[in-house]
């Protein structure tokens, strides 16, 4: 009970959310992540306008302090996700449909399609750091970010809309404000950081086929926490905070910084699909030990003096 959370009007059993791009390639694995893994909500792998293979391997690696990935936003194309979306709608599991695109019109087109399947929320990925011309450019600039949100809001009906922001933006809080003014219902922060690169010195070459990739996991936690903290001071919207959350204590830190829900991505690598249940258990234990009666009580407490 103490973890029940209302996020942009959606009731969740707990505040843990499967991050986009992790596991979420079909309906069955998303349902399993919620039922067996314990996630309060799950996000699909971002879907794009058309069929796209992404980069050659290696695309995802662990480098001791986090993951690095340049999957390159592979996508079956949004029209090929109909079966999965239907199956998820039927399952009743809170689903966040994640969308990436090359233009404002495309964002609206894909979001409009997703809306028909009544997902709990539509996430606008404007923050992927390794795919050319998609995602990130929209999240670097207040005006563009606002325009994307506005265009999507016109077609999204009652489904809440949540832009996902990038830590590369020089002022992530202003971008969040612009999205709020444009009608966003929540903010998701952060997508992967970087880009970064790995070199294998024995081979004398970059390891990722794309050379550069986005960084996630433990290494990015302080940056993610700062972003959530700054966004919380700039907007009234609820925040889905993510970036390096590996355990319950990390999740509590994000909530103290101002997050309403907490995304878990890379930690699936470190702890397996059951990480959501584990994070929840650890949060409850932490709350007992530290006399926190509810998440409400500690949300945003790291602010002020």
């Amino acid at each position: 009970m103490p973890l029940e959370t209302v996020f942009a009007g959606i009731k969740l059993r707990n505040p843990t959310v499967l991050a986009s791009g992790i596991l979420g390639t079909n309906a069955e694995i998303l349902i399993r992540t919620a039922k067996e893994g314990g996630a309060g909500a799950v996000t699909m792998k971002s879907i794009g306008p058309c069929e796209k293979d992404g980069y050659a391997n290696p695309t995802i690696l662990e480098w001791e302090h986090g993951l690095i990935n340049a999957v390159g936003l592979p996508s079956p194309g949004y029209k090929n996700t109909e079966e999965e979306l239907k199956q998820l709608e039927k399952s009743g599991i809170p689903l966040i449909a994640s969308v990436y695109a090359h233009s404002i019109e495309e964002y609206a087109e894909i979001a409009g399609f997703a809306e028909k399947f009544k997902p709990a929320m539509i996430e606008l990925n404007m923050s992927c750091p390794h795919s050319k011309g998609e995602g990130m450019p929209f999240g670097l600039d207040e005006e563009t970010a606002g325009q994307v949100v506005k265009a999507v809001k016109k077609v999204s009906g009652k489904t809440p809309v949540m832009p996902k922001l990038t830590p590369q933006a020089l002022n992530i809080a202003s971008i969040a404000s612009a999205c709020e003014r444009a009608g966003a219902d929540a903010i998701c922060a952060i997508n992967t950081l970087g880009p970064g690169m790995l070199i294998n010195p024995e081979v004398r070459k970059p390891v990722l086929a794309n050379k550069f990739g986005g960084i996630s996991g433990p290494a990015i936690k302080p940056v993610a926490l700062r972003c959530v903290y700054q966004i919380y001071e700039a907007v009234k919207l609820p925040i889905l905070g993510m970036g390096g959350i590996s355990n319950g204590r990390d999740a509590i830190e994000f909530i103290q910084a101002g997050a309403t829900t907490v995304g878990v991505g890379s930690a699936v690598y470190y702890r397996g699909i059951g990480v959501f249940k584990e994070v929840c258990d650890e949060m409850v234990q932490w709350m007992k030990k530290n006399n926190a009666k509810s998440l409400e009580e500690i949300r945003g407490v790291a602010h002020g003096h």
Partner: protein
Amino acid sequence: MTETPETATIKKISQETPSIRSFRLDFPMQAKPGQFAMLWLPGIDEKPFTLTAEGKECAVTVQEKGKFTKALFKLKEGDKIGIRGPYGNGFSTSRVKKACIVAGGCGAAPILLLAEELQKQGIKTAIINGARTEKECLFAERLRKTTHDLYITTDDGSLEEQGFVTAPLQRLLEKEKFDCVFGCGPEAMLKKVFELCEKYKVPCQLNLERYMRCATGICGSCVLGKWLVCKDGPVFNSKQLRETEEFGSKALLKCGKDVPIKEFAEWRQQ
């Protein structure tokens, strides 16, 4: 913990059949039969391959097919290659007293380690090994050393029995009681093996393949229904397969599109 490829030197290349070679690497890897490694050719790609030797040195056995394997076949002894692993669950031999292995085509790769392991544990094992033709029959000589019960089938009858592996399997299931049937090979074949096992109420463990990226259970590229082939598999048991409609019927392409298994198999042949 890091999960990036390390460099290994190719110590020995053996031509197993006209299209299949084994690459022995100067690289230690402790693995169970059925586990796999990711091989990396810088600038080209990274792909999963079942381990066909493990311990102080490891090996993989590869069929020449597309871009990656063609590039691999250009390498010589002494050349370097990137490798990470082992990954996946491998076959479980616990509580097995009498076993049957069914292998087909290049999917037969894990068979050797498995047969050797079963022999080491003193488990009585019948082996059925299928190939298109005599020349493409993998590991026949080495398998013969691990069992008295070796059945070989070829599509064209060029070696021993003509036909598919399912014929000798059905005969064996008819007259003998196995604790487990282990299978590796093309999914269409494995589907038939599964149906036979279900009919004769024998548990099976089958080694499946899907397109892979991370190999560590995070990207979801390799989903088989609710399972991750890289992490929950690549070996699945009867119970898991029973609940999995996608087995033998559907798979994701590289882009994530869900297609019939036949289309997937064709895509792989491109």
